[in-house]
């Protein structure tokens, strides 16, 4: 076991745990954001850099600070480590800088984006962004591409987190899409015309932190904040059949995997459950889905409002703007 201090809070975790997971054990406002790391996907993380934190003491044995900010999602804890996130101005400034980088080529087309309301980048820019852009240049654009009948790729919105590539490698088989090109010309694509066609391909939609990969069967059907998420299951021969239905009245508008408060899926689901079972009678309804941060649904009206209780005293001003917590 390793005991670490994170933003002044002590927490004990298993050896080999990352700083991010240790912070998630504490929970609440102190947890660093993560745009590319995804617990169920091996090898993910380290790329987007929004989870950077300051290690002011490496370990009890070697108390020297780490010279640079480190990505908390891939850096393992050491016993006696002291980490600063929301309590460190350098970290907050660096994060603000990185959010700006993520936004300079982002289309900011939230009003017509299906991800609006449950978009990690939208939340992040609200928490750490600035209201005016310093970027005068033309933004990078790509054509929309249909990856088969169910999935649309809107590359212009992509932040190159690689999650969908890891998903295709690890959850589905016969990956046909990947990252092509390099630098700021890199893109997700299939290179030759191709469809992503296998029983688990739809999961790339759930793992996408932005609106780059969207469900064509849900496209423009509704805004997520008008829908009512319900936990449901069915007896599925392919996957666990445990899903969240996004309903309005008697209509099932969308089916997704169940996601936790960090928007990570609990169990990946198959395409039949996701795309073909769009009637209430296909499902056994368990009850309303509790949605935490990461979605405007968390502020929805069908659940009792939960009061946000700050657990860290003396936070710098810049964290006061956080979205409501559970």
């Amino acid at each position: 076991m390793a005991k670490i201090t994170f933003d002044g809070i002590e927490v004990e975790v298993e050896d080999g745990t990352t700083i991010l997971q240790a912070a998630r054990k504490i929970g609440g406002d102190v947890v660093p954001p993560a745009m590319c790391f995804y617990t169920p996907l091996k090898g993910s993380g380290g790329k987007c850099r929004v989870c950077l934190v300051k290690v002011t003491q490496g370990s009890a044995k070697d108390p020297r600070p780490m010279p640079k900010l480190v990505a908390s999602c891939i850096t393992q804890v050491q016993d006696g480590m002291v980490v600063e996130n929301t309590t460190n101005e350098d970290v907050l400034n660096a994060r603000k800088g990185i959010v700006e980088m993520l936004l300079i080529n982002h289309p900011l087309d939230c009003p017509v984006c299906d991800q609006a309301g449950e978009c990690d980048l939208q939340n992040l820019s609200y928490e750490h962004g600035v209201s005016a852009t310093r970027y005068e240049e033309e933004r990078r654009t790509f054509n929309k591409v249909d990856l088969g009948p169910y999935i649309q790729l809107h590359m212009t919105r992509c932040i190159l987190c690689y999650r969908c590539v890891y998903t295709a490698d690890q959850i589905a088989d016969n990956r046909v899409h990947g990252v092509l090109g390099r630098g700021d010309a890199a893109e997700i694509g299939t290179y030759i015309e191709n469809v992503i066609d296998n029983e688990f391909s739809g999961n790339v939609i759930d793992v996408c932190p932005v609106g780059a990969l969207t469900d064509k069967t849900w496209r423009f059907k509704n805004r997520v904040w008008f829908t009512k998420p319900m936990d449901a299951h069915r007896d599925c021969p392919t996957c666990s059949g445990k899903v969240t239905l996004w309903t309005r009245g008697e209509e099932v508008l969308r089916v997704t995997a169940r996601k936790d408060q960090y928007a990570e899926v609990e169990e990946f689901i198959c395409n039949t459950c996701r795309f073909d079972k769009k009637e209430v009678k296909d499902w056994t309804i368990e009850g309303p889905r509790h949605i935490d941060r990461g979605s405007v649904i968390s502020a929805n009206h069908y659940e009792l409002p939960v009061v946000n209780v700050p657990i860290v005293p003396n936070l710098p001003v810049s964290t006061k703007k956080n979205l409501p917590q559970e």
Partner: protein
Amino acid sequence: MGLKILTEHINVPGIETLEVYRKHGGYKSVEKALKTMSPDEVVEEVKTSGLRGRGGAGFPTGMKWSFLAKPEGVPRYLVCNADESEPGTFKDRWFMEKNPHALVEGMITSSYALGANTSYIYIRGELLFVLRILEKAIAEAYAAGLLGKNILGSGYDLDLHVAPGGGAYICGEETALLESLEGKRGNPRNKPPFPAVKGLFQSPTVVNNVETIASVPWIVNNTGAEYAKIGVGRSTGTKLISASGNINNPGVFEIELGVPVEEFIYSDQYCGGIWKGKQLKAVVPGGSSVPILPANLILKTAAGEDRLMSYESLSDGGFVSGSMLGSGAFIVFDEDQCIVRNTWNYARFYHHESCGQCSPCREGTGWMEKVLHRIEYGHGHQQDIDLLVSVAKQIEGNTICPLGDAAAWPVASAVRHFRDEFEWHIKHPKEATAPGAVYRGQLDAITA
């Protein structure tokens, strides 16, 4: 001319053949190491020598070697970084082309020290013609029993292969290099784990620059203590300097570390002075990524001492008034060169070469290039100068690999030392974009 360790025989006709190379003492270190020394003794000699990585970072080689993990039953690898791509650097290409056996010898002796039985030379893809030269030398070494099974009857086995890249500066970063060597995109890996623990094929691996490995035979033959006597302070030994730009004698020079910069620029033994009788304006002393210094600061430190060609002296003053020895790529600018244009050129390079994996570098390198392009072509605003500094700062230190720093430093240092020139470009776009126009207002001050 000082002592020549790497280039003593480089101009001997036929030195690229095994026969001539051996006639001039070639492969003596292999005999000595394999027959009379234990691997650990070789590592100790390299430690004693004070040899530092010649690729740019200057990390002590012996220490790097001693970090190599040695779990039972797991192969270890030595990989030579011959992906020489840092603008201004051409010493390794020149050296391998002329004296391939010197690298092969270094690879055998070093692989023995590290307990590697398969080693690779990863060479940039543009140098396929050098790959052919190396493969020929390797074939000769196999035929002579210097590679393969039971080398010189010592019981030590080594296979050595050359692998080409495909055109990507980033593959000079050691973990990107390993990815590329495994046939993948050259995306740098997250560290830890470091290559010394999990490198090529997830096995412990040492990655060393060409010049570093080629220095090992001399150390083995003459002892580390003798090597440590050459040079100055912690900058031991000799260094190949690639000299380019507006000088009379561009080319590769082997220097004993510690030669005064002024002598290096003006002596006929080295650069031979600024071409066409012009004045010196600035120098980038260690490859395009290191800070540019105006003439006054490259010749003398801020304290007024002579600047020397050594790791310590070139970095004296930190980034406020100093730079770095880096890969030893010495790029000289005469009075007619435009710093804004050059900074844009370097920014374009790093934009072009960013792998795109992490967001500050992917987005920031392109942003800097576009702002610099705007200034260079007469469309800049006053606030662009501070914007550049700010974007550079947002990249620096926040990326997966050092390419982010490499992209930020040239921009930040150009603004630091040549701010007047940037302001002039913005205030006088018409004059600044006229053919051949150069800002001269600062020249008197920096060349004083």
